[in-house]
């Protein structure tokens, strides 16, 4: 498995706002093997969603990829014609969006919206498409699929709409599923159901999933590996257990420390002082340095992402420094 071509390889991808403008993503490297779930975590504005849109080729103008490679099963997506890329979207790679309330066309029935994908990517029509649509709704554990296939989105609850979104995403039998905060807009109980559903389908199909979230709990639950993003860069990447037990980058440690813990009775959550630098406001050095407790003069140059453990990389000149002793309290 590990020696095969990765499902998705993002190498040194940089996106800018207009040609020669400020960088939104800076030399981002991630890779995702087939059948693997990679979590991308970071706070708002860290570039998580931009990464997803870069892969799908859906960056909103004037933002554009200015360098690097994005390979899906070895094929460089950045060299494809618009037409070829369109044929891949929904078929080889599909995406689920954050807002199930607004991601469905309000004037089309559920069945029509699933049917569109079936027609484009699997040449299914009429009764066959309808039956497949019902099967897909069953697959996403939609109650009463025979009836709901004729429903309009406004007749469905948020959780049900997200199930429909997943059914639509699965309709083209994608090998890569990008889920951009799929549960952020849902109730906590529904969140767990949707995550479990994605996890089950991923296991059954051996699909690769790129899961974007700001919720570390979701990462712990769902992912094999995780990439931590900060200000448009990947600052740490590795297996979930390594990241949770031995976080190398001070930002990752800050993120982990700011989770509420039931065991600790403290009434104050720990926070990371300051905010993410705005686009175009980043200096030449480590973009986390202004907020970092252990920053020094050597942080004025941008640290590259380098190995700090087995399949564990971090972009910090002093990995692990100032880290508390690893405790066996993480899940």
């Amino acid at each position: 498995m590990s020696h095969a071509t990765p499902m998705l390889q993002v190498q040194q991808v940089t996106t800018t706002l207009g040609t020669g403008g400020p960088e939104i993503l800076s030399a981002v490297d991630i890779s995702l093997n087939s059948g693997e779930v990679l979590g991308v975590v970071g706070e708002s504005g860290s570039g998580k969603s931009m990464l997803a849109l870069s892969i799908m080729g859906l960056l909103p103008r004037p933002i554009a990829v200015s360098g690097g490679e994005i390979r899906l099963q070895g094929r460089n997506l950045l060299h494809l014609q618009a037409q070829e890329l369109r044929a891949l979207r929904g078929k080889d790679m599909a995406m689920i969006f954050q807002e199930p309330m607004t991601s469905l066309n309000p004037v089309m029935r559920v069945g029509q919206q699933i049917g569109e994908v079936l027609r484009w990517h699997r040449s299914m029509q009429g009764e066959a498409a309808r039956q497949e649509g019902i099967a897909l709704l069953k697959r996403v554990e939609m109650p009463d699929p025979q009836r709901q296939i004729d429903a309009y989105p406004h007749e469905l609850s948020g959780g049900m709409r997200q199930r429909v979104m997943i059914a639509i995403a699965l309709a083209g039998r994608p090998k890569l599923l990008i889920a951009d905060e799929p549960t952020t807009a849902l109730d906590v109980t529904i969140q767990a159901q949707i995550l479990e559903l994605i996890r089950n389908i991923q296991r059954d199909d051996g699909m690769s999933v790129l899961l974007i979230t700001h919720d570390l709990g979701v990462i712990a639950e769902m992912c094999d590996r995780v990439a931590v993003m900060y200000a448009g860069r990947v600052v740490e990447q590795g297996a979930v257990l390594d990241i949770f037990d031995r976080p190398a980058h001070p930002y990752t440690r800050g993120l982990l420390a700011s989770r509420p813990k039931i065991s600790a009775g403290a009434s104050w959550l720990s926070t990371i002082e300051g905010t993410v630098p705005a686009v175009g406001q980043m200096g030449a050095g480590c973009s986390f340095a202004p907020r970092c407790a252990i920053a020094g003069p050597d942080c004025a140059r941008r640290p590259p992402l380098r190995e700090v453990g087995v399949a564990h990389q971090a972009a910090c000149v002093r990995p692990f420094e100032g880290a508390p002793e690893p405790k066996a309290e993480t899940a």
Partner: protein
Amino acid sequence: MTQRASFLRRLLSNRSFTIGASLVGLVLLLALLAGVIAPFDPLKGNFRARMMAPSLQHWMGTDQFGRDILSRVLHGARISLQIGFMVAIITALAGVLIGASSGYFRRLDGPLMRLMDAFMAFPSIILAIAVSSVLGASVINVIFALAIAATPHTARIVRASVMVVREMEFVEAARALGAGHARILFRHIMANAMAPLMVRITYVFAVAILNEAVLSFIGVGPPPPAPTFGAIIANGRDFIVAAPWITVAPGLAILVSVLGLNLLGDGLRDVLDPRMSVNTR
């Protein structure tokens, strides 16, 4: 299903829509049945019955050639409604084509909208007069002249609603599933941007009837003896004191048609876009 049913119910409980639809329906019915219910041939004169005031035989009187005004108005309704309808259809098609393209493809926006601005620089009736005089007077040319005059505003309206819907998330979702431009534009965007267009089109219909009358009145409308509302009025204006019925009857017909269409459009607007509604009864 339920959505459609409740939409109809809301339309039918809207007073302005029901009154407007009844008036339009009445005019439409009379126009369709003109051949059956008109008591006389609208084109055939009768020299023994010239300039007769309304009577039991000629309900709306006769003109200087002895032609029955009621028959002329009924047949005129046919032509006038046909012109209005064709103008509405052509304007809708052209407006969607131009408006949707410029709202969706940013590169086309500048050129197309500047062109529309150029058209809008003229008052639409002046534009229609100019086009009609250049093309020559015929029913088809009048239709084109009026459609050209109505298209720029319609394109503007379509463009505005396309630009709003274009940024909605389901459009991006459709794109992420591999939808092409045509599919996205017509199936996903236009389908959600129809409401303002429908309201606009009822208005275009009404204004086309009115403007056709204006064109006929100043002599660049459909050529005589075709009885359109405007042509009948134009014919009667020399006798407006001696035989006012010649102008009053078609004038009332215009009033009823345009009022009906406007009320219908108002009702549609109230139901389709409650936020834009002015009267809350």
